[in-house]
């Protein structure tokens, strides 16, 4: 998957979890939770959706790898390549 595809996939999940958030100005290198109104349950929802939709398992120890968009791309890239 390309970087754009991974970001699109993350945004699709966030849009469902937090439908009121504006995703058009999310900076890739700033923690998502500093830019969006996401709490720890929303974060778990992202993990659960990654598993359900894309078969990607993110163990709890790896949660920090999803903190920014850049980190999501780096972490999920190898796991999403088909």
């Amino acid at each position, binding site marked *: 998957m390309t970087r754009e595809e991974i970001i699109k996939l993350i945004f699709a999940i966030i849009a469902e*979890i937090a439908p009121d958030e504006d995703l058009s100005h999310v900076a890739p290198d700033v923690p998502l939770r500093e830019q969006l109104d996401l*709490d*720890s*349950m929303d974060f*778990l*929802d992202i*993990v*659960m959706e990654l*598993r*359900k939709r894309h078969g990607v*398992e993110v163990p709890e120890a790896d949660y920090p790898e999803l903190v920014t968009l850049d980190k999501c791309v780096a972490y999920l890239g190898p796991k999403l390549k088909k």
Partner: protein
Amino acid sequence: MDLNTEYDVVVIGSGLAGLTGANQLAKWGRRVLLLEQQPNLGGLAAWFRRRGGHVFDVSLHGFPFGMKKSCRKYWNQKITDSIIQLSRIRLDNPQFNITSSFELGDLTRLLIEHFRVPPEMVDRFFRRLKEMEFYSESSQTTRELLEESFPGRSDVHRLLMEPITYANGSTPEDPAITFGIVFSNFLNRGVYTFQGGTDNLVREMRLELENNGVHIRNRARAEKILVKQGKIAGITVGGQEIRCRAVLSNANLLHTILNLVGKEYFSPSYLDLAGSVRMSGSSCQVYLGIREGEEVPDFADLLFTSTLPHYDPAALSAKEVTSQSFSFYSPKIRPGHNRYTIVASSNARWDDWAHLSDEEYQADKQRLIGKTIANLERYLPGITDKIDHREAATPRTFARYTGHLLGASFGTKFEGLKVSQDISREIGGLFHTGSVGIIMSGWLGTVNYGVIVAHSLEVFLGSPSRGDQGGIHEI
């Protein structure tokens, strides 16, 4: 309903955590059996009907706005849309008499204008709360946090702490993060309830579970959780054995370990930890039904009243009741129902009620009812003549209804969370959810904890290590 003899998951107990966990697992395609010992689902999200057309809600006092988000994500839009705000929370005691929505803005205003706290002090405190997370390592107690933030201001400490003591039984000796997380949840837009009452909510949840394929059995008390070679093999209920790969216990944590499983299946170190878990206390309640055709003046949604000179958590739980919270239910809360009910709650201790003779017990319940009505007369003169049903519940009532040790009505203290979470490391496929650790208690806490544990259970079921020797023990 015909039951299969094999499921992916058996959920024991249908408190909000068990219900939400069961729903989540069913949505992921798991075959789920939900067992509830009572005729109604809901656990302590309970209600009951009495002659005269009264419907009483046991624990629907008010929950944070976050419930709206959780219901949308884990239940459905209809349930979400029935959530409405309770905007008038009144606190009356010898130190102050105020009404607030408990939203950040309103509480800030009160602290500055009424309590004359410097704005920067208020701001610093609320920012501090916002930064608190479960993972923030800190040994600070709530008392230390409050004293550091508002030195010497016992009235401010009371304003911030007393409602939380009513809400979850916690005290200033509990970790500051438990206070911070719970209080921040309420500050974020205030206090909410379900329009339609508990019965309506649980009916909607039941429909949703059935739509998602959950098998539900009421009046079914799980007798034993069966373990073979360190892994879940099944459960027994009504003498029948049902095989399953995992159990999600929404029963009391210690009841799960000691009675449902049996301590011989756990490691000594885990049992030590479990042995140190304290309950967060119990409750007394008085249910007052107002005669048909009579009204209750609309003066507050919730009233926290106390005659104690200062905030004193030990005295709040004393048998000689000085402090109560009143929840007022009007036809606004139950559209189509024309009755008013009032539910008074106070914190209570098991030991004060457990050992009374039947005669003493009945007499003490009547005394509690009398004191409660007298207390209410101070705010609503003449209310006594409008009441046509009065009834009390005590820690014994809670123990009988839930099977909780010591009649616990708020779950466990903070240390219970780790014991709850670690149970799956002891026995492959065994998970616990429910009111634990203070932060996972209450309506919002238990719904969210149901999801958190359901996710771990789902990972277990799907994990390639299943069937391996040792399995999850190796973690």
